[in-house]
């Protein structure tokens, strides 16, 4: 229970923001940042904890987005049900891609390549298929009622995405302390050694992929509800694959808060740059690319990782080593 205190504090703090901030521009910025943080947390489950770097997480974002968009626009399905269906669709796509890739034993570069390829295939297919609106995309009809998952006030959208992020943070925390999480991390550190200790690496990776895909798909569903529009380039574009991996890498892979911290930093950099030099296309991604290179080069464990290193360094200097807990049974 104590382990969840940091999450509670952070979420509570973020929940207070709309009390002080009324500017739609700022709320919009925070909203989008949280959405990216959600997508990034999804990547973090598979990439950060599991060590399997996907370069095509757009596949899940888009699966969630298109599923809910199509269900609403073409079949009149309720938006909330559409959301759930979108998350399920994302999980299903994750199961398929993961099943194929992990059964084939793909690791590292090859895994990154195949995920990239899947995302690209989906992007091309949806850019020509009629049901996804081909080149034009899908528009959701404006219907500002709660049951349509649309809200007049931006603050409510903010609370929704914050709630989703809170769930994702809790999932990561639960993962860290569960047997599945221990096994997943072991697979990341050394797959063969993990197998020799009884870990079914393929099953574990697949499980992580499914959870990861579902979380990122939720971000895609939220995108559709907030912007009421989706097309192939947005759904399956490299932009989301990049942002989903960038945020946990910068924030700290394999940590509970890494994706959130990374999203805040990355998005602030992007907005800051635009304020200074104007909204020129390519500026934000250019900065993201540079930041990625610099972070890997100089601080590969990201911000949270670097802070943890500093903390450990400091506490080792001032605190005596911990003694084994009394009362633990001995041989």
């Amino acid at each position, binding site marked *: 229970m104590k382990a969840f205190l940091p999450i509670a504090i952070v979420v509570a703090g973020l929940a207070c923001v709309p009390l002080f901030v009324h500017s739609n521009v700022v709320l919009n910025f925070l909203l989008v940042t949280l959405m990216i943080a959600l997508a990034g947390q999804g990547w973090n489950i598979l990439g950060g904890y599991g060590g399997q770097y996907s370069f095509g997480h757009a596949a899940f974002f888009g699966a969630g987005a298109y599923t809910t968009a199509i269900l609403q626009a073409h079949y009149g399905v309720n938006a909330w049900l559409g959301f759930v269906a979108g998350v399920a669709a994302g999980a299903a796509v994750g199961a398929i891609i993961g099943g194929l890739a992990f059964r084939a034993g793909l690791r590292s570069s090859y895994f990154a390549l195949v995920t990239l390829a899947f995302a690209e295939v989906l992007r091309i297919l949806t850019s020509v298929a009629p049901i996804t609106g081909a080149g034009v995309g899908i528009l959701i009809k404006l219907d500002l009622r709660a049951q349509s998952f649309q809200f007049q006030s931006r603050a409510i959208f903010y609370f929704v995405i914050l709630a989703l992020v809170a769930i994702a943070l809790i999932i990561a925390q639960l993962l860290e302390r569960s047997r599945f999480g*221990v096994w997943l*991390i072991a697979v990341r550190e*050394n797959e063969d*050694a*993990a197998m020799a*200790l*009884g870990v079914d690496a393929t099953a574990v990776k697949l499980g992580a992929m499914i959870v990861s895909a579902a979380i990122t798909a939720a971000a895609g569903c939220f995108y559709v509800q907030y912007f009421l529009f989706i097309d192939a380039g947005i759904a399956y574009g490299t932009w989301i694959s990049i942002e989903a991996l960038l945020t946990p890498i910068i924030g700290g892979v394999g940590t509970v808060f890494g994706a959130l911290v990374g999203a805040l930093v990355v998005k602030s950099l992007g907005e800051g740059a635009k304020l200074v030099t104007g909204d020129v296309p390519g500026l934000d991604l250019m900065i993201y690319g540079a930041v990625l290179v610099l972070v890997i080069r100089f601080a590969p464990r990201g911000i949270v990782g670097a802070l943890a290193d500093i903390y450990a360094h400091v506490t080792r200097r001032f605190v005596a*080593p911990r003694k084994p807990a009394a009362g633990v*049974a001995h*041989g």
Partner: protein
Amino acid sequence: MAEPLLMVEGVSRRFGGLLAVNAASLSAPATRITALIGPNGAGKTTLFAVISGFLRPSAGRVRYAGEDVTGEPPHRLARRGIARTFQIVQPFAGLTVRDNILVGAHLRHRARAAALAIAEEIGHEVGLGDVLDRPAHTLTVSGRKRLELARALATGPKLLLLDEVLAGLNPSEIRDFAPVIRTFCAGGIAVVMIEHVMQAVMSLAEHVYVLAEGRVIAAGSPGEVAADPAVVEAYLGHGAAAKLRSAHG
């Protein structure tokens, strides 16, 4: 008499044109320490890889606890009770010593508290009690070897395959290690160890198999095997046995 815990029957493993293991058979009963020795490149680690599921044999069978387990994947064999260490140690470098052992402990214990307790216990038993919270990559060679052993033991195995677990240790470290191995064996585990350190083999093992060029060329007690001319030849080359005999008159 009941079938020994591990029975390897006529296992061969081919890599393209190279026959790394050639119809090798051995058996390892519970509570016994069995050694597998032989010159470099004899196929010992390959045989281990087959027994522990990392490689499929080209021919032959592996029987464990009376069942045919040939070709089962490593994690399934670990659940059955076969644990192995690696010749080149493979710690989970970024994790603490405790968390390393925890991975093994979780095999039989789903709950974190129970698994942590096991990890703590085994950590102390192999002599790593003082360093449980240090990152694994800061351990010395001797420490890493102990960690390999601890992780494998945490899975609660009945058969322990040790691949050159004593390599790289100095004589006093070996002397400290040996009783640890003997204790676990007495507890009911069958141990098969690949070793080059002859003093350890001679003092620890009750039964020895000698592998050369993929084939088992001798088997017996340490004393019998040491006196076997075929074994001397395998290590020292053709004609060496005769040379030794003539030198000693």
